[in-house]
Every structure is written in structure tokens, then in C-alpha cells.
């Protein structure tokens, strides 16, 4: 299943946040959205999953979601959004219960996603007992449990320290290698973007427009930490963004 953004524009009252965004997200691809703060990248992601409505333009699903898909458009949030009163297993079963999946069938799915995210030993733990990186892995396991057609990831690694971030990036690559998934990945971290993105969409500062789309052909598995080719791309991206980022930063001060 592909996703198409068709002429999305959005304003909050007087403030125009996004202007005429059109973009295709192809199946099996990770598309990264980068841009200076306040450019509306997270807002765009909320449109993609139907949590918010744009002022004009449409979000389209092309084709049907794959068989067994419970929740085609599934988020992974920056703040993890785990229920603190439910164990790791309970948090995953939460999203299955409403689809009538309980008992043995639910246990099977939960065991599978926990194994894929290396959390099998922590099924009974409460979120408060887990580190930030582990919490985000639980959130990823929860997203995988509903077999999404598209994962919508809103700065999923931004709340984590840099070592944990590296580790989780490796995990995400391994997950994708095992079973390619479609994802829209919002981040302000260019290193994450060049590491995980097949396609990197650079947005301008407010009102956000598409400045450039950079494609990286190198397979995810061959992209290593501090790869020279990726550094080059990252430099290019930073070059595109630097002035915008500075202007955006100063703009915020005037508000």
C-alpha cells in the first residue's frame, strides 16, 4: 500500500504552517522528513495518520493494506506513549484487544514481536522499570503487533541519549532487513535521516514547503556509523538547512 500527499496546505489561524506539499511514499521505503524546528513536519505526520485534518489537500491510500493488517497507519511516538499501569505485554495486548484478538492468538503475536525487538525477557516489566531505549523498543513492538502497512515515526529516537540512539538505529535497520516495512520518519537529526532513509525530504522553514528530495541508493545494511558517502549527503542536507535553521531559530525569538 502506498500513501500519497496531495497538495497539503495548513494554517493555524493566521499562521501558515505548510504550503502545497505533494509527496508519494512507496511501499517498502523509509521516507525521512527533515527540516528546521517549527516547519510543520510533525503536523504533516499527524495528517498522514488521520489524527489531524489539513486546511486543504488530501491524504490518499493507494491500494489495499496487506492481508492481516490490523491498523494500516500506525504511530511510534517520541514520548513512547506507553500506559504506565500496564506491563510490556499488557501494553501490546491493549492494541490487539480491540480487534478481538485475545488468548492464545494474542500471546503468539506478542511473543513474536517481543522476540523481534529483543524484549522477550521483559514481558512482565512495568514501563517505570525500563530505560528510555527499552521503552521505545516496546513502542516499536506494539506498532509491529498490529502489522501496519505504514509506520509513522515521530522523532522516535529524539528522547534518547546518543549511544542508545545508535543501538536503536541498528535495531531498526535489522528489523527492516528482516521484513521491509514502509515508514515515514520525522526527525531533526540528519545522521538518523541518512542512516535510515531511502528518500529524504527536506522541508523549508515556516511555511513548510518541500525544498529538495534526496534519494540514497545505498542499501540500509551497508550504511555504517560514520560512512564517508553518507557524511557527504549529510553535509549537503546541512548546507540546505543551515540558513533556514538559523532563520527559524531567530524567528522563534520574536514570537
Amino acid at each position, binding site marked *: 500500500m502506498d500513501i500519497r500527499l496531495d497538495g497539503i496546505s495548513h494554517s493555524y489561524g493566521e499562521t501558515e504552517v505548510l504550503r502545497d506539499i505533494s509527496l508519494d511514499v512507496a511501499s517498502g521505503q523509509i521516507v525521512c522528513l527533515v527540516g528546521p524546528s517549527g516547519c510543520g513536519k510533525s503536523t504533516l505526520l499527524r495528517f498522514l*495518520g488521520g*489524527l489531524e485534518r489539513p486546511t486543504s489537500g488530501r491524504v490518499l491510500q493507494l491500494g489495499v493494506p496487506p492481508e492481516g493488517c*490490523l*491498523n494500516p*497507519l*500506525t*504511530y511510534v*511516538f517520541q*514520548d513512547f*506513549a506507553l*500506559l*504506565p*499501569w*500496564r506491563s510490556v505485554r499488557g501494553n501490546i495486548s*491493549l*492494541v490487539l*484487544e*480491540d*480487534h478481538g484478538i485475545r488468548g492464545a492468538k494474542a500471546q503468539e503475536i506478542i511473543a513474536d514481536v517481543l522476540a523481534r525487538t529483543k524484549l522477550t525477557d521483559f514481558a512482565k516489566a*512495568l*514501563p*517505570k522499570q525500563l530505560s528510555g531505549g527499552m521503552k521505545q523498543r516496546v513502542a516499536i513492538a*506494539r506498532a509491529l503487533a*498490529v502489522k501496519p502497512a505504514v509506520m509513522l515515526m515521530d522523532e522516535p529516537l529524539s528522547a534518547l541519549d546518543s549511544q542508545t540512539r545508535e543501538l536503536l538505529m541498528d535495531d531498526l535497520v535489522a528489523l527492516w532487513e528482516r521484513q521491509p516495512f514502509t515508514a515515514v520518519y520525522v526527525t531533526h537529526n540528519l545522521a538518523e535521516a541518512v542512516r535510515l532513509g531511502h528518500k529524504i525530504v527536506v522541508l523549508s522553514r515556516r511555511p513548510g514547503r518541500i525544498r529538495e528530495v534526496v534519494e540514497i541508493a545505498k542499501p540500509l545494511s551497508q550504511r555504517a556509523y560514520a560512512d564517508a558517502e553518507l557524511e557527504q549527503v549529510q553535509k549537503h542536507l546541512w548546507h540546505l538547512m543551515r540558513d533556514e535553521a538559523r532563520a527559524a531559530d531567530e524567528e522563534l525569538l520574536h514570537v
Partner: protein
Amino acid sequence: MSDTSFARQPLEVRFRGGGFAPKRRRWVGPAVFVVLIALVEWGTRSGFISALTLPKPSDVLATLIELWQSGMFVKHMVPSLTRLAVGAALGASVGMGVGILIGLFSYIRAGLVPLTAAIFPIPKIALLPLFVIWFGIDEGSKYALIAFGTFTPTVVATYGAVDNVDRSLIRMGQSFGLSWMSIVRKIVLPGAMPGILSGLRISLAIAIILLVAAEMLGAQYGIGAYILEAGALYDLERLFAGVVILSLLGVLTSGAIGLIERRVLGWRS
């Protein structure tokens, strides 16, 4: 020379952190009670405190023991506890229901929040004659008074607690396609539980206060009736015996809620 070398002596950094973190001190609470009671006992025995001002703690204890041995304790406690349980259960459960509805629906909020604000400050005791007319002089008016008194604080605590539920968790529920009922049952209610329980603490204390007021009219037995009778006769020992029972009741309900909190809210860090 020696001056400057003295000034260059390494100086240990002065500690200025710490504090502002309550720690558990088990024995302090009971110690305060013991010291206060011992002081009063000493005062009344030595004549420093006149018998008209305060009764001897030992006499109050003797009265309590006698009350227990005569079987009157049970006779007073059973109706009181029944009134407390029925009234508080009624008021708290309806209060929680209304509070949740206010938290969830804007129209209900707009309509009922001002009404609750209007009812809250009314001294419920002042309405007792009215309740007697409405619900009769028997148990009905007593239940109603306690229920009414616990209702308003429960409503306010509950809708505040629902308002404080983390919105990002609700968005998460929506993003996974959870039904409205599931979101309320599995996200809003557990998320509001800490606030609801701490509201319940206050509501139950108010219920105990109102219990005495309810037993002012037409109650033959009950801790409130016992206290009021003792007060009318200026029997300080019995008055204080009754007060001690009420205090213990308060400590017990507060402890019970603490127990529930520890069981239900173990997930809090």
C-alpha cells in the same frame, strides 16, 4: 609569604544540597501522640490543668474500656458504620460518575460545573431539616446528608483527575483505532485513578464529620448521638471517648485508602 600560602590552602567545598525530600520516619507520629497525652495526663494529675478544661486521658481510656465491656460500643458503632458506609458509597459513586461525565462531555461540563460550585460551599448541616422533610426522620435523611456531603468533593476531584490524564496517551489510543469505550475504560479511568483516590480521602473525612451532624436528629444510637449526649451532659470523659473513636475511624479509612493506593497504583514511580 605565609599569608598567601595560607590563602592557597585547598578549601573543602561546603555542602549545600540535600533536603526537600520527605523521608519515612515511622516512630515520629506515634511519639507526638504519646508525648501530648503524657503531658495532658501529667497536667491533669498535678492540677496544672483543671478538671473542667480537659479530662484525664486515663479516665477517657477507662470510659472506652467500660463502653466496650458494656456492649454499648457495638451498639453505637453498628448504626454509625452502616450510615457511613451507605451514605459515603452512595455519594462517592454518584460523584465519581458525574465527575467522569463532566470530564468527558463538554456540554455536561458547561452545565454542571457551575452547579457543583454552587452546591459545594453550602453547609450541608444547614439542610438537615430539609432532608428530614424529604427523606424522613429515620435513616433516609442521614444517608442523604452524608451522601450529599461526599458528592461534591468527589465530583470536583474526579473531573480534575480526568482532565489531568495525559492527552498523548489518548492520542495513542486513537491512533491504534481503539473504540471510544476502550479509550475511556483502559486509558482515561486508570489514568484518573490517582486523583480520584486522593479525592476520596477528603470525601471520606467529610463523611465522618457529617456522620455526627446526621446523628444530631432522631438517632438513639450511634457515635454522633453518643458524643452529643455526652456534650449536653457536660460529661467530658465520654465526649472525649467518642472523639477518640471518630479519630480512629478517620485514621482507619485513610489507612484503607493508602492500602488501596498501594495495590492499585503500584505502577507509579
